[in-house]
């Protein structure tokens, strides 16, 4: 009889302890509009470190940023990643950006046989990601700066697809992200040329969520942002750190060897170009974004206000805890 009572008592204690432990943990459903690859390593590292502090960041990869945004709008995900400024403005959803994960880094690249400078692109055809995308905005800003006009802008979604089309000769001038630019330059170094670009400052990936979520899960969001900031700072101090952490935490284990070799050059280049903000972007990132996305045509209207798009309190709370 006594033994049975003890067992029951132990079970009750165990169950309530598990329940309490589960209750203390915060769950964040994170919608990623991309395939998980080497550029998501900072996010994966931060998620692992947040887990150790009681915040479970569940990352789901969606096919595109649009789908990920829909998931947040419809409440199937808590945090989304991307720059859906237009959706925020038009849907009128109470959704706000709160952290800049990375800044835009793109490279206009041309086939040397045909073009040698921006001036040569006057009256020529170029290919960008999609209509109204950041890549189109960058190319249009450059055209304005160099006083040229493209004959035609065709839309070829995906840097990788454009890189392949460039190598195959289907397109002669386009704009690529860092890893695909490196791939192209490695495959045929003598055939292509990267055109110089003025200073473009805008978010490539920013985090957004509903105000309701940000207010309700303040502690969890703060811990996650602290870890993201710490990861960015560590990478900026030493790009090699990504490799070490990946090994230590066992992230992206099934990465092909070819891609593995691209990790370090990718992060070195990103750090050199200031892609990862040490302070989560904040007010200045918000202002740059509003300016850039207004020029790109994604945002409409004058006098856009930061507070209509960004909620800066979570970042401030996190930065206060990170020395």
């Amino acid at each position, binding site marked *: 009889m006594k033994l049975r009572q003890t067992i029951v008592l132990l079970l009750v204690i165990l169950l309530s302890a598990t329940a309490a432990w589960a209750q203390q943990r915060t769950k964040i459903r994170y919608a990623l509009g991309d395939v998980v690859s080497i550029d998501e390593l900072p996010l994966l590292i931060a998620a692992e470190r947040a887990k150790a502090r009681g915040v479970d960041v569940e990352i789901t990869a969606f096919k595109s940023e649009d789908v990920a945004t829909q998931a947040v709008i419809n409440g199937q995900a808590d945090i989304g990643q991307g720059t859906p400024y237009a959706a*925020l403005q038009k849907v009128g959803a109470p959704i706000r950006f709160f952290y800049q994960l990375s800044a835009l880094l793109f490279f206009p690249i041309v086939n040397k046989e045909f073009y040698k400078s921006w001036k040569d692109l006057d009256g020529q055809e170029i290919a960008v990601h999609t209509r109204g995308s950041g890549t189109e905005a960058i190319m249009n800003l450059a055209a304005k700066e160099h006083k040229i006009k493209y004959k035609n802008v065709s839309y070829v979604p995906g840097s990788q697809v454009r890189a392949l089309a460039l190598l195959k000769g289907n397109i002669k001038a386009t704009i690529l992200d860092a890893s695909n630019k490196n791939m192209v330059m490695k495959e045929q170094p003598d055939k292509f040329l990267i055109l110089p670009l003025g200073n473009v400052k805008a978010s490539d990936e920013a985090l957004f969520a509903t105000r309701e979520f940000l207010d309700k899960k303040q502690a969890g969001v703060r811990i996650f942002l602290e870890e993201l900031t710490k990861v960015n700072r560590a990478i900026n101090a030493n790009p090699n750190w990504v490799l070490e952490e990946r090994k230590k935490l066992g992230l992206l284990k099934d990465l092909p060897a070819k891609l593995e070799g691209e990790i370090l050059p990718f992060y070195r280049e990103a750090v050199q170009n200031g892609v990862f903000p040490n302070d989560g972007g904040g007010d200045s990132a918000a202002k740059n974004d509003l300016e850039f996305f207004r020029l790109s045509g994604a945002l409409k209207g004058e006098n856009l206000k930061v507070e209509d798009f960004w909620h800066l309190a979570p970042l401030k709370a996190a930065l206060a805890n990170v020395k």
Partner: protein
Amino acid sequence: MNRKEPILKRSLVWQLISFALFFGLWELAGRWPVSLAFPSFSKTFLALVRITADGSLPKAYLVTLQPLLIGIALCGIAGIGFGIGMGLSRAIEWASLPLFIILQAAPMAAIIPLITYIYGIGLTAKVLAVVFLAAPVVVMNSYKGIRNTNPSLIQMCRSFLGTRRQEVIKIILPHAGALIFAGLRLGLAMGFIGVVIAELLITPTGIGDLITYHSSVADYPEMFATIVSIIVIAALAIHGLERLEQKIFPPEIRGS
């Protein structure tokens, strides 16, 4: 004749009621709202008027119809020819039937991106996407139409000492006509699917561009209007062909 008219009228009324019910439910769902990204019927309708008036929708259709028409024309000529060949010759059937059965079963949305690796991102790739989807239906229908010719009719032709040529031209082809035409109609339906998938998956042009662009800048009413317009146009085109089919091949011929 007199009796027929009220029935026609009544069915028209029922059709209108069902449309009104559908659009009413849509309006309610949009206002409720089901999702912040789901526009009401009235908003979608206004968006449809807007994109038609500013010329972006008609322009998009000019682009989208190109690969569709080329693809369907190719299927109409080569596909039907091939299907007839397969129906008439055991050798052609043996060589190509498995290919079309596989094509019919293959998940096209997964295969279309592969086309880009070989044919790039231009018009060719989109025409191929249409052909890949439409050809199996067109070919298989023509083939079955030929194969299913009533054997007693063929026997009759032979007993009247008809040549093989007469057998094909006077018995088999007229008999298979209805099925071949039905194949063409189904092929057109598949062609619409193919061209939209191609424009969404390969490069956004025409209708695919309107859908992706409006969705990326969160103009959801415009996006829905575009989608609705392609559904309506596809449905009307297929319905038109069906009418034509009934006229050319009335049931008494088809039923033989």
